[in-house]
């Protein structure tokens, strides 16, 4: 090999390396832009929550004298919009937990009878679920409100739970039917030969084997109920029946807008779902790639 070609190869390699660094640098700049875009509203929220009431109206872009006073106020319920805060926090937990439980119960029963017991015309149920899935929930809000007063469930947490379960079950059924395909039918058949009833198969075979999907869908339903606003705002009207999301939006009604308390409340409200989401991300991702999607 001649010296000349060796040098040419070296410079070629160097150029290639330089190009790689350049691309990496461009990607990093792009990543930084993306980071700023994603974090901007979150930063704004934290900035205001750590400020005093006066500092909110000063146009600061860095926290001056950051303090946790707003969070202490929330802890002691020391503002008139926050008088029932922890009770409302409990309401949100109750509604979320019930939604999660009922969604799992109803959706597993439905997917069990359609895909394991092979219920005749079971596809009608799947289609009903699919149709509910693609109807925007907010479009049903007004008739739903009227119907809840017909059912005598005005200002009752169960009306919200009913609404949340209605909008969570379709996705749940969708996921369960897909996930259930990975469980061999032979298991059911051999259990059947050993004399197991459908109920026993449901509890002892179907539910245990579905547990990863149950975790994903249970979390999904919990977060759906916790994060929802419109239905909770419509259906719950008194301070002691409200959930956190409704209480939070109430701040916007007042003219003096204590934005620091409001943003602190927003952070306290946002932390549990964020924690749950990141903790169960693995399961959620598995569920998502397996089944469908829901915004």
């Amino acid at each position, binding site marked *: 090999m001649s010296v000349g070609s060796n040098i040419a190869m070296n410079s070629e390699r160097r150029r290639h390396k330089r190009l790689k660094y350049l691309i990496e640098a461009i990607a990093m700049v792009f990543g930084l832009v993306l980071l700023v875009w*994603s974090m901007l509203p979150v930063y704004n929220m934290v900035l205001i929550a750590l400020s005093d009431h006066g500092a909110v109206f000063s146009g600061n*872009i860095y926290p001056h004298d950051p303090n946790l006073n707003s969070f202490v106020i929330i802890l002691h319920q020391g503002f008139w919009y926050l008088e029932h805060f922890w009770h409302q926090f409990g309401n949100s937990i109750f509604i979320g937990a019930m939604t999660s439980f009922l969604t799992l119960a109803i959706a597993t029963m439905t997917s069990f009878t*359609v895909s394991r017991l*092979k219920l005749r015309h079971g596809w009608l149920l799947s289609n*009903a679920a699919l*149709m509910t899935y*693609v109807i925007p929930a907010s479009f049903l809000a007004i*008739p739903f409100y009227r119907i809840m007063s017909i059912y005598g469930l005005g200002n009752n947490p169960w009306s919200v739970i009913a609404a949340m*379960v209605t909008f969570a079950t379709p996705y749940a059924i969708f996921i369960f039917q897909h996930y259930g395909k990975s469980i061999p039918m032979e298991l059911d058949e051999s259990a059947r030969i050993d004399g197991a009833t459908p109920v026993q198969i449901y509890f002892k075979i179907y539910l245990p084997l579905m547990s990863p999907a149950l975790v994903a869908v249970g979390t999904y339903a919990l977060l759906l109920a916790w994060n929802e606003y419109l239905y909770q705002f419509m259906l719950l009207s008194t301070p002691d029946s409200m959930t956190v999301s409704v209480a939070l939006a109430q701040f916007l009604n007042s003219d003096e807008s204590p934005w620091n308390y409001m943003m602190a409340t927003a952070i306290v409200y946002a932390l549990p779902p964020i924690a749950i989401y990141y903790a169960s991300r693995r399961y959620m991702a598995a569920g998502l790639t397996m089944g*469908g999607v829901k915004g």
Partner: protein
Amino acid sequence: MSTTQQALGSKAPGSFIHRTERLWQSRMHVLHGGMPLSDYAWAIAFAIPYVCLFLAFVIYPICYGFFLGGDPALYAELATDPHYVTAMINTIIYVGIGVNVKMAIAFLLSGFFMRKSWWTKGLLVLYILPWAMPALPAFMSMHWMLNGQWGFLNSVLYEWFHIEGPYYLNDRTLGMTSNICAYIWKNMPFWTVIFLAGRMAIPTELYEAAAIDGASKLRIFRHITVPLMAQLYLVSTLLSTVFSLGDFNAVFFVSGGGPAMSTEVLATIGIRYAFDIGDPRLGVAAVLTSLPLLIPLVVLLMHMLRKQEVQL
């Protein structure tokens, strides 16, 4: 034991009991799709909760909605209401731009997040935060961030560049832009993750083979990634269109529909008619006018979601 008793009592082939059982079973077969009676009863029992839920909370509200919005006079009233016409136009802009921009960027970003470096993995975790957090706090924060006088955005513009920023939420165009940006901010991470999963499902052998054949990155993208992702992209876009049609939170909390109801969309104006003006019939009618757009979408989506059992 006599032969008769044996014939009656045993289930030997050809015995009386055997024959009646066979007959009974074949009857049941016809009736219940091959299941013995008790199993059929169980199958029905398992279906009852969802059937009740569906009838009570989906079918009944839908029928009630048609009953509420059934009066043709309501639609004449809507047609003459300038707020409604604005909202209709806004909805088309909001959905058309919001969904398509979001999907296109999410698709490209999913390629970006395929990079195997430590910092893209870290970035992905933070990038998902908008999706992981509830909509309400984020949109409220944006509402204040966009405040013309005290908002963070204009403070930054003033401190760093000495520019007096505009009053974003006092202007229809800027207000709509803010709403659309908020919508994209909230929903883009989710679809990026969906597309990322879709890209990861493409066998690497395809890329390796193309690289060996000397195909350029652009050609690989054009001839492998795009065709294999097309179906997922289409279904996702349609689904997202339907969801964004019903999106209430972004508009309600970021611009609040203002100034002077000029940035309302169908989902918010319906609620506005029903609860602020106290005319639920008009509200339902406004929502029902989305049906010519919604029904074809729903039919198409149901067909696609059912037929191909999407791997989303």
